């Protein structure tokens, strides 16, 4: 079963056997090459076509007669082979036979990866195309893809080598009769092989492809671009996934070393649950790593590795592991996020035994007895006592001063802690150890508290409330300034730290400065914010910028 192809020759319709068509087409292409440079070459070709048409008409017996390969070959024999015609045609042609045409740049679609640009360039430069491709690939990475534009430009501008003459020019072979003969023979052999080996539908498609209409070109361009894009995305996938996997492995190794060095109980401080940290690390490794393994195989596929890279079982296993790790880590995350859901406080009322003195002096005791401190994370400090026991140490201590409703000064210490349940929160709060010392008129407060390591990191704090009766005095040592709470009412409009270092008297619900200079001004900046204060006997202006934003306070005139 053979296909037939209808052609028009000198306005006459002929049906040709497919292979006969191919031979005739090649023949006419060769003739075109022979006569194209002759004056009136077009006329010659036209005349020859007319003659072929006449000869076909003589052969053709009926309307639906299909001209065979033999008949085409006979016609070609009658008309003369391109070599015969080239030889007889002109002396100028003969003169050309030993002359090598300068190489021309064509796209070699016989040696194509994408558009045949690299193949064409390799002929032009005279090296194997693999080197050109390698250089293009290197350029792609060093120019961040800029070479892609150049490639596409070349693809569009550089013509495809379709005729024998083009192909010879492309390779810089001397364009002489024997070479053309050789080339034609090669190609005819190739054609006949193709006809023998390839199924006809496929061949028909190839022929269709060769008809270079603009839409076909666009289609091919799109196809090529997709292929190109796929290639580059594949490379990117491979690079990203291999770097990520490498990073994950290095991270895991470093993590293991880290966990081996640090005592486990300290590591566990980072999480509220008793789930070993090493498991969390493993889950994170699996969740992050497995997608990159898949990305890697996808990259290989895009690079044209069509074989099965990973079996079905390992794939399913990896997928299962990933799902398991994801679920485990989610559960862990939910529990972890609930860890501080409930806040609870434990209050302790300090008996004020000696209230004879009018002035209470507040001093600070800094945690000097814990000389060995290890700061693990930002806010987490681990200390060891004389017995070698580890504790968590925190400086989250605040002192509030307000008017007492009674005649007696009152002192309460509140330990505030959080937990995933009320019980746990109270337990956490009660585990806080905070030390104060009240002796006569001196109150010595620690600027830190400790809690057992098992209570885990936790936004705990200690709040000291001092209730001062009307008419009583209080002096706060300068060193305690950092631990004063925000809204302590005072006549100077002082803010936190500046209250320290002065003697104050409780009058009408606020502290009245006893030793402040009447006119003062100053700028104070620390980690808590900025405080600008100008004041005299009659008026004051305070500008503060802190967590609460900008505040401008003016009093008096």
């Amino acid at each position, binding site marked *: 079963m053979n296909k037939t192809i209808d052609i028009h020759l*000198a306005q*006459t319709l002929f049906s040709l056997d497919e292979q006969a068509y191919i031979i005739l087409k090649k023949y006419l292409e060769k003739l075109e090459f022979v006569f194209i440079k*002759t004056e*009136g*070459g077009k006329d010659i070709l036209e005349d*020859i076509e*007319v003659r072929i048409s006449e000869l076909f008409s003589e052969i053709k017996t009926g309307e639906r007669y299909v001209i065979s390969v033999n008949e085409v070959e006979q016609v070609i024999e009658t008309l*003369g082979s391109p070599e015969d015609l080239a030889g007889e045609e002109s002396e100028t042609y003969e003169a050309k036979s030993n002359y090598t045409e300068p190489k021309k740049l064509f796209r070699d679609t016989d040696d194509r990866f994408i558009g045949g640009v690299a193949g064409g360039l390799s002929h032009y430069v005279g090296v194997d195309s693999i080197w050109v491709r390698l250089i293009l690939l290197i350029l792609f990475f060093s120019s961040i893809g800029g070479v892609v534009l150049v490639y596409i430009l070349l693809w569009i501008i550089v013509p495809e080598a379709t005729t024998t003459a083009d192909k010879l020019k492309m390779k810089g072979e001397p364009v002489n009769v024997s070479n053309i003969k050789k080339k034609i023979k090669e190609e005819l052999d190739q054609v006949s092989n193709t006809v023998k080996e390839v199924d006809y539908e496929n061949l028909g498609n190839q022929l269709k492809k060769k008809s270079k209409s603009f839409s076909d070109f666009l289609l091919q361009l799109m196809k090529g671009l997709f292929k190109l894009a796929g290639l580059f995305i594949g490379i990117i996938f491979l690079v990203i996934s291999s770097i990520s996997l490498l990073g994950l492995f290095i991270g895991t190794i470093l993590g293991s070393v880290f966990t081996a060095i640090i005592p486990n109980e300290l590591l566990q401080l980072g999480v509220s649950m008793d789930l070993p940290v090493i498991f969390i690390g493993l889950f994170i490794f699996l969740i992050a790593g497995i997608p990159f393994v898949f990305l890697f195989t996808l990259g290989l596929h895009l690079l044209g590795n069509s074989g099965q890279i990973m079996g079905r079982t390992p794939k399913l296993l990896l997928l299962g592991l990933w799902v398991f790790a994801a679920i485990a880590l989610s559960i862990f995350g939910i529990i972890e996020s609930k860890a501080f859901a409930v806040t609870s406080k434990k209050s302790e009322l300090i008996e004020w035994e000696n209230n004879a003195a009018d002035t209470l002096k507040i001093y600070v005791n800094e945690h000097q007895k814990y000389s060995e401190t290890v700061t693990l994370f930002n806010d987490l400090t681990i200390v060891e006592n004389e017995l070698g026991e580890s504790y968590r140490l925190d400086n989250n201590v605040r002192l509030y001063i307000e008017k007492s409703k009674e005649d007696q000064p009152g002192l309460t210490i509140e330990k505030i802690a959080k937990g995933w349940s009320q019980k746990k929160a109270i337990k956490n709060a009660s585990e806080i150890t905070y030390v104060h010392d009240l002796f006569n008129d001196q109150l010595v407060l620690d600027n830190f508290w400790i809690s057992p390591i098992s209570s885990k990191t936790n936004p705990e704090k200690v709040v000291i409330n001092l209730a001062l009766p009307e008419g009583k005095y209080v002096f706060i040592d300068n060193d305690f300034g950092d631990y004063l709470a925000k809204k302590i009412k005072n006549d100077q409009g002082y803010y936190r730290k500046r209250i320290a270092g002065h003697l104050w008297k409780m009058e009408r619900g606020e502290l009245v400065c006893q030793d402040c200079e009447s006119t003062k001004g100053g700028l104070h900046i620390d980690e808590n914010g900025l405080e600008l204060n100008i004041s005299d006997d009659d008026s004051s202006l305070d500008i503060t910028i802190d967590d609460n934003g900008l505040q401008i306070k003016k009093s008096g005139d």
Partner: protein
Amino acid sequence: MNIENTKAQMRKGILELCILSTIDKKPKYSSEILNRLKESKLLVVEGTLYPLLTRLKNAELLEYRWEESNAGPPRKYFTITKEGKSFLKELNSSWSDLSIAVTTLIKK
């Protein structure tokens, strides 16, 4: 020395003379010219004729006009020009000179 090549060169030299002679009496279209030349075994392959016709046309020794035909496509009818006629005359006399000269030379 390639004998085929020599023969081709010899034929080529006199082909122009022969083509012009065939259309000297009356206009002919290319297939008619071809048949005449093939009868006299002057033409090995038909394809050779067309470049020659074109060359003669370019030298304005002949001209052609299109004529519709009953069977097949329109045909090119070739007519000899004035220049062609005088050229042919020249060629004819030189050919008879040459043929006499060559024949006598070979016979001796």
